[in-house]
């Protein structure tokens, strides 16, 4: 645990944080919530440049009110110029599952790159992953994403001070940003940067699990974000078409749904985790109209 973490308030009431070694790398995970519920525990995998605290600061403690929740903090498994692969990150997720909830079926939730990891894992380990939530996920990087990715890498290489602006521009939905000032965005929005983030961004440029996704048998909920510019909705719709046992929901949010509309995402995940079969395969979930 980093020093800065110990200064911060706990992620959730009663949270337990543990570390395990996976292929020589220390991986942190957090556990909270009741273990005596009837539904499977939820295992959460964050997205690029994230951590449990960074991406699931809202979802983790609020899901823990009614579920047992385990969340992985992915760690850099490769050194030097070796490329990062989904297998590396899958190994960390599987190791956490084996440690925290051995011999149990789970609900696996992935956000962004975490959704690619979760889809990859679910396809290859159908006996472990009985329910799957893909939040702003995709299965094959396309040209629109490649263009974003290339500009990101260029700004990063130049150490451009505008990298943060570019990331915020891509991460948040246009309607959300329309009412914000630079002051509102200061502090919270910047993406932490290190070698691992660079490796994740490089991996993002060549995600391709198209051949695996049809193998997913888990009861699946796909959540798309209408104003997502990093993973536009057509990716979620493609997943919806490909995964046989999938249902689909769309939120009026940008890619940063965990900040823009966390409560709306929570509602969908909470209800799905408690009763995955509530809606049949192929269903589009109704949107709450307050």
């Amino acid at each position, binding site marked *: 645990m980093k020093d800065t973490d110990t200064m911060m*308030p*706990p992620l*959730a009431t009663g949270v337990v944080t543990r570390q395990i070694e996976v292929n020589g790398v220390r991986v942190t995970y957090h556990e909270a919530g009741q273990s005596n519920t009837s539904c499977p525990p939820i295992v959460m995998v964050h997205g690029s440049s994230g951590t449990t*605290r960074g991406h699931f*600061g809202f979802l983790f403690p*609020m899901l823990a009110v009614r579920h047992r929740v385990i969340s992985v903090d992915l760690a850099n498994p490769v050194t030097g110029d070796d490329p990062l692969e989904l297998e590396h990150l899958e190994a960390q997720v599987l190791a956490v599952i084996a440690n925290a909830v051995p011999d149990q079926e789970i609900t696996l939730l992935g956000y962004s790159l975490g959704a690619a990891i979760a889809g990859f894992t679910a396809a290859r380990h159908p006996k472990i992953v009985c329910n799957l939530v893909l939040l702003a996920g995709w299965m094959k990087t396309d040209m629109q994403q490649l263009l974003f990715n290339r500009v990101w890498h260029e700004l990063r290489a130049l150490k451009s001070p505008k990298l943060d602006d570019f990331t915020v521009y891509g991460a948040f939905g246009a309607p959300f940003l329309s009412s914000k000032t630079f002051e509102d965005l200061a502090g919270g929005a910047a993406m932490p940067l290190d070698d691992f983030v660079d490796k994740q961004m490089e991996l993002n440029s060549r995600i391709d699990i198209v051949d695996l996704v049809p193998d997913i048998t888990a009861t699946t909920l796909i959540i798309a974000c209408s104003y997502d510019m990093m993973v536009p909705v057509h990716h979620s719709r493609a997943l919806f078409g490909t995964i046989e046992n999938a249902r689909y929901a769309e939120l*009026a949010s940008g890619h940063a749904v965990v900040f823009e509309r966390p409560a709306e995402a929570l509602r969908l995940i909470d209800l799905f985790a408690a009763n995955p079969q509530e809606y049949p395969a192929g269903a589009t979930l109704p949107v*709450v*109209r*307050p």
Partner: protein
Amino acid sequence: MTKQQSIHDTSIIIVGAGFGGLGMAMRLKEKGVDDFVILERADDVGGAWRDNTYPGVACDVPSHLYSFSYMPKADWSRVFSPGGEIWSYLRDCAKKPGLVPHIHFGAELLKAEWDEASRRWLVETPQGAWRAQYLITATGVLADAHLPKIPGVQGFTGDAFHSACWDHSISLEGKRVGIVGSGASAIQIVPEVAKTASELVVFQRSAPYIVPRPDRAYSSAEKRSFERLPESMDALRSEIFWMGEYMFAQRRAVPAFVAEARDMALGHLADQISDPELRDNLTPNYVIGCKRVLIANNYYPAFNQDHVTLETSALEKVDGSTAIAVSGKEYDLDVLIFATGFEAPEPPVAHVVYGRGGVKLADQWDQGMQAYDSTAVPNFPNMFMVLGPNTGLGHHSMVYMIEAQADYILGALEHAKKHGVEVLEAKPEAEAEYLLDIEKRSKGTVWLDGGCKFWYRDPRSDRLTVLWPDFAYAFRDENGTFHPEGYSETAASTAAE
């Protein structure tokens, strides 16, 4: 028999013509139900928004959410519209769907009694009596002014009134004014009264947390685009709704969100008050959210004026023209304004409603109010409550809750009609199970663990009886649809005993 003849028969009696009663009636009308009356004690609709006319009155929930989803208004003047505009909106809500002919004004509920033999509710008012199969109470949570018992107040030589019964005949120009309380009403009144009073003292028992109010006027272009593109209003409504729901993580006492909310409130205080002693006196001593979090940009600055004094203790007694605080400090005053809130934990309606076997609701509720699905009470057949027990929100719009309950009650009425049921009564065991669930949800919230005493909890049992201790959406998901399994049913064909 003359008394019998003066009884008006109808199917449904709604008590109250505020947001709750009008919201219920609009939905009945929409479903083609016409056989109902609305009994209103005052001479106009509007509930709290009719009664609260104090200077500065406004709502703490943005108007595009604090309005009916089935009656959107494109031309709200501001993000947080003033009280008068909300009242006028409610008048439109009565007129447009044709509710006015159903409303009887000056018809205060004096007594409502379940008559076992006829299986009807008998309701007495100064305007006559009504008899109906169903009784729907929509008497409000913050409807009846609460006045603390202050020794000597009767002998106060100046003028005194409650914030919800503002006496506009009394000019405050150049007067020495005392405001008792520092809650949601007081913080709106103080900056306004400070503009004209020669001296103003605020009696603060406990400091509130106050966060910035992101208010602004809507431009005419915005209003016209809302009108031309109603879906843009829906999108805004959803955005406000989910932003509000985000706040629940703080009430749920998630440490990072408590810290974030506290930092925001204390930062707002520090930005507006530079005097360290005054700032200390305005700093709350409990966990944020335990009491209602208030929003204002003009409250703190009022205290930076020389003629405005913060008294950090309650008003203890009054002697002639002198108001004496618990601290012992004395203030000579011309006007005393009680911004001391409402009878929330025990709604006065409970004292006039009698159920099966003549049981009084207030007696059944002697340890605090409770209801199955927050809507129906055992021993009180065919009675439904809009904004009854455990429907309040510490973080969100009550109109959302009203709409959920209206759907539930419509479901009950439709169920009874479809299945030939004459009497629906909540089962005691269903109510008990519901209360256990409420108790479970309440655990770990700032309302129970935040170190404050507030009207969200009943003083007799210490239970959380006013608030719904979860997300607003969870209330609608769970209590927005009628649950027949929680009711015993009596068929219409069964002969009355």
